[in-house]
């Protein structure tokens, strides 16, 4: 192997058996991701990470083939997934009993609910941070709002019984660590008990009335709307009820954490000064028109998009066509249910010909709005909710 690469892999004997560098592998580069739209922007093909161009997120409810993909490891092989035997086990220090349910048992034993829930990757917008932040360089489209069907996590947790010292629920999935080491989890996160006990917190097996796409967690996953999507474990096999904040992979260190107190750009922040991200900040996306539209001066430009605010509701959305000097209010719909994104729209008349940018900014129910510049710098580049901008030419 070393010779074929013209260099040697030092300590190659530490490589798990059967693992071949991707550069040596005889694998075709992805043109198209399985089950995904051909215009998805592929940031990485191993593990698969892909985002959706904003203008393709125009649907009220995001179709499965346009739902972004953030994988930390390798998803299970579809052929190896047996729906009849797939089960989810519950355990942990704070579980009153250990219990395992097959997927069929979950479906028959508990009441089924359907909600539209917004999921956004904690690192959506990372690409804009300066100094640059480590990880996949997400642009705008690592967000989606689909209609999820499943059982309430709280109903299942109540069936098992929580001890009074329960603090966190932790998930484990069937995906494999990139190194191929079966003892390593690609990711194992979760949420505090109060979030787990919300009505909208689901163990879901269906997206938009269909099977969940394999890359998004088929056959079953957690969905916690409004929180970093990494909380919502995919290919769900096991839930552990912890008596402390979960300490699984990507819970500790700097992962999915931001400085507890604001820091200057580029600062080195110690692990103990980093706090876990919970609810995501208020944000919006212009999904029509696609950036680059040219119109005539006598035409009126309709614009529309979505706005969301983590655990909160969006109270208003405004737009500016003069680089933030003046703002006008858009129409804004109520969410389909709590934690669903909200449709905004308006019509714009431009005063004279020229180059414009349409900027949109949303305000949450606590009165916080999106910044026009980048929000607080953080080492891993999370939570960029700076306002979205589209370029327009009026001729």
């Amino acid at each position, binding site marked *: *192997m*070393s010779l*074929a*690469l*013209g*260099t040697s*892999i*030092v*300590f*190659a004997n*530490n*490589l*798990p*058996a*059967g*693992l*071949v*560098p*991707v*550069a*040596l592998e*005889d694998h075709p*580069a992805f043109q198209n991701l399985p089950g995904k739209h051909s215009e998805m922007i*592929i940031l*990485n*093909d*191993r*593990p698969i990470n892909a985002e959706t161009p904003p203008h393709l997120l125009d649907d009220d409810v995001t179709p499965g083939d346009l739902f972004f993909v953030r994988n930390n490891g390798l998803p299970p092989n579809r052929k190896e997934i047996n729906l009849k035997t797939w089960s989810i086990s519950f355990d942990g220090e704070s579980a009153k009993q250990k219990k395992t349910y097959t997927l069929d048992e979950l479906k028959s034993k508990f009441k089924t609910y359907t909600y539209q829930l917004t999921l956004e990757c904690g690192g959506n917008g990372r690409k*804009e941070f*300066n*100094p*640059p932040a*480590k990880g*996949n*360089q997400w642009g705008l489209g690592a967000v989606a709002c689909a209609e999820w069907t499943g059982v309430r996590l709280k109903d299942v947790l109540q069936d098992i019984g929580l001890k009074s010292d329960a603090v966190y629920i932790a998930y484990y999935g069937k995906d494999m*660590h*990139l*190194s191929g*080491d079966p003892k*390593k989890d690609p990711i194992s996160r979760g949420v505090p008990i109060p979030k787990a006990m919300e009505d909208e917190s689901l163990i879901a097996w269906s997206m938009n009335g269909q099977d969940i796409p394999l890359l998004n967690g088929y056959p079953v996953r957690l969905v916690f709307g409004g929180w970093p999507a990494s909380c919502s474990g995919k290919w769900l096999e096991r839930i552990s009820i912890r008596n402390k904040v979960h300490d699984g*992979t990507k819970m500790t*260190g700097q992962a999915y954490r931001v400085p507890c107190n604001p820091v200057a750009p580029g600062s080195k922040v110690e692990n103990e000064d980093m706090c876990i991200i919970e609810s995501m900040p208020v944000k919006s996306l212009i999904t029509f*028109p*696609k*950036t*680059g*539209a*040219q*119109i005539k001066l006598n*035409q*009126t*430009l*309709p614009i529309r998009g979505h706005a969301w605010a983590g655990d909160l509701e969006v109270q208003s959305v405004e737009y500016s066509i003069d680089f933030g000097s003046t703002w006008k209010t858009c129409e804004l719909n109520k969410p389909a249910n709590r934690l669903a994104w909200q449709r905004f729209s308006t019509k714009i008349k431009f005063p004279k010909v020229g180059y414009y*940018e349409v900027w949109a900014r949303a305000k949450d129910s606590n009165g916080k709005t999106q910044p*026009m*510049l*980048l929000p607080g710098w953080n080492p891993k580049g999370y939570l960029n909710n*700076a306002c979205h901008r589209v*370029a327009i*030419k009026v001729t």
Partner: protein
Amino acid sequence: MKTPEGLNDKQKDQYQEAWLDTLRTFIFGAKTILFFVFAALLYIPLEDDIKNLFKEKQEVKVTTNRSTEKDEDYDRVENGIHVQTGFVVAPGFDEVRANCTVCHSSKLVTQNRATREGWEQMIIWMQEKQGLWDLGDRKPIILDYLSTHYAPIKKGRRDNIDIAEVEWYILDLENTD
């Protein structure tokens, strides 16, 4: 020569082919080195020249003697970029390709930009948490490569919209309402 286990026949053929190629490259390389040593004795080369010589040697190495089409794809370089991985072809390329595309694709590397210290932190993190091995004396070569070719670009609190990237189109408004 021992072929590693777990390869299919095609990979084995490729492996053996590549091994022979490497042997040829090695002999060629040895001759080249002798030539350089000889040349160095005759002239006192300037620093820049030395750098250029090494650069040339690297490029020769990845483009020599490839017979089949497949192999050409495997090592194809366009405008200094290795087509298959997207890596800049420069000293350190071989080491980075061999060590940094084992678990994830090169895309995760080329997307990122960091200082030498930043790259080192990422490597330490992968060694502590993700099963990356000790890179031995390859580590400084890899760090030099990454911090040279994937260094941060200076920019402000927010970039302009990248106008060069915008695809302008006529919006047909009759159909939009």
